[in-house]
């Protein structure tokens, strides 16, 4: 909300060879022994969490999780090879909370945790779980950093979502956990809901593997399906947490999609990636959690890095925090493989 950015020069690995030297790394996040630093990140997340019912079904989401262990193995440095299997990291979360309700790890590029939220809600709606823990995480590694640089997707300066001068994305790291429950379980466990997950959807553009469909076909379909599932009219959406990576193509595609859905109505749009970077598989979950906070506070976060609007972003995106007038937000994410995901989040009754 302060409009500050965590995107800074990377010190975790050398960046000489790359066209970008910056990322949003968590200060002092390091490995412990031979295990991946993903566990240090998770431990920090867990330290802030309350108890979770043991019967809870676990859905984790990440794109590369413990890939820093693969880096070490490749260099001949001792590391736990099991960290390279995402199901193993999922086990760690499950064991931490002694969960017995079953588990699943979802991997769908930058839409992973948004999809995880939808799958959790589906399980509850199908009656196969009354409580689902969604836990998402990803860390900044040279593996990922180098790849996006090689694809010419990275910005040499802090990213500027929806800005006409944007030059690409910056990666970030983070983790989030959310407990989904039906009414029965929340009452039984004495949990007060802070929001509602009302609609969700996943689609594929079926156009290109790395670039978004410029007509927004997949994202438009995802938003329409999520709205339909929520039972809400599109007029109920009071703000959009966009994927907003700061790449030329993604931001254009999203503006086209939002225009197609919402027409001439100026629905406020924001992106947090100028503040915390693109947290990859964790992005959707972190952004959904921020939507919950926004709804509770009645405030839309600023889009850090934004100053001069891309055509189509005028009046929609702001570099300042704004009042949020409404009870429902749309959050969207898109990723490699042509995947798009959308969720509709409702304000909880915090009275």
């Amino acid at each position: 909300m302060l409009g500050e950015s965590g995107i800074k020069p990377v010190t975790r690995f050398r960046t000489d060879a790359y066209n970008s030297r910056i990322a949003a790394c968590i200060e002092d996040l390091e490995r412990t022994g031979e295990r991946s630093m993903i566990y240090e990140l998770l431990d920090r997340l867990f330290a802030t969490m309350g108890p979770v019912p043991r019967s809870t079904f676990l859905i984790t989401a990440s794109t590369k999780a413990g890939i820093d262990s693969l880096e070490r193995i490749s260099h001949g440095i001792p590391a736990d090879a099991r960290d390279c299997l995402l199901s193993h990291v999922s086990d760690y979360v499950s064991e931490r909370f002694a969960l017995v309700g079953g588990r699943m790890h979802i991997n769908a590029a930058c839409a992973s945790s948004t999809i995880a939220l939808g799958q959790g809600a589906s399980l509850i709606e199908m009656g196969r779980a009354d409580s689902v823990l969604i836990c998402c995480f990803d860390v900044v590694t040279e593996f990922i950093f180098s790849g996006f640089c090689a694809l010419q997707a990275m910005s040499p300066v802090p990213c500027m979502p929806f800005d006409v001068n944007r030059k690409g994305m910056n990666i970030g790291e983070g983790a989030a956990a959310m407990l989904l429950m039906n009414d029965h379980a929340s009452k039984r466990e004495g949990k007060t809901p802070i929001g509602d997950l009302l609609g969700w959807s996943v689609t594929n553009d079926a156009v290109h593997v790395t670039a978004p469909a410029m007509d927004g076909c997949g994202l438009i379909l995802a938003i329409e399906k999520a709205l339909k599932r929520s039972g809400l009219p599109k007029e109920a959406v009071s703000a959009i947490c966009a994927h907003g990576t700061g790449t030329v193509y993604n931001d254009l595609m999203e503006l086209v999609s939002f225009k197609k859905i919402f027409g001439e109505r100026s629905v406020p749009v924001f992106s947090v990636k100028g503040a915390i970077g693109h947290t990859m598989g964790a992005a959707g979950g972190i952004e959904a959690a921020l939507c919950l906070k926004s709804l509770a506070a009645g405030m839309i976060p600023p889009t850090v890095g934004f100053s001069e609007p891309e055509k189509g972003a005028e009046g929609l995106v702001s570099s300042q925090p704004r009042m949020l007038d409404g009870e429902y937000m749309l959050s969207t994410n898109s990723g490699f493989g042509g995947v798009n995901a959308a969720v509709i989040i409702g304000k909880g009754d915090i009275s």
Partner: protein
Amino acid sequence: MTVGGAGMGRNAGSFELSEGALPRFAGKMSFANQTFRRFGRLDKFSKLGITAIAYALQDAGLDAWEEKRDIGVIVSTIFGCLATDFDYYNTVMTKDGLLADPNLFTYTLPNSFLGHASIIFGLTGTNFVINDKTNSGLSALRSALDCISLGECAAMLAGICDVDPPPGFPISEKTAPGSIFVVLEKSIERQCRPYGRLSIDNNGTLFFNESEINDIVMCVRRCLGEGAEI
């Protein structure tokens, strides 16, 4: 597509998922009058998965299309694109990152091949990968059934896909390499004889024609009328 060969449905002959070497892939792939010329440039994991998806769609009479369809794909995998991860990182280590291969990096996301399959076959539905501890495929089947039950998609592909981990990789998990996909639809509106009915109870137990199944291999065997388990 397994060690035993590639095939589909009633034309597959005997079916097994066993350890060994997968058949060699062709340089390009042709299905339903389409030729996917970039097939030869994909990583092995992607080639494997796309081939199996192609066969499943052909068996279901869904390979040809003119307009995109609301069909999704969910696949579960143990190792995912781990072999490609190592191949990619080797290009990073060469010359300290200067030669990082962008094409290989694309395939370090295990869902990338779902993107190719979606493009080739016009699939716009729910799609994601499940990183699993076994190759039972049950998680993919369950999620796919839920998608159909909740009206998210008209049809779903559900399956497994695994190539061998890199040689010498210090992990004890063993699995037979291969990929198997099934096509699930709620209602039959086209002229295609279904193999049977897949259902799920509140505990997540799966049934094929009201007999419990323990994995996707058993499901396929039941489809083919092979009652005995390996």
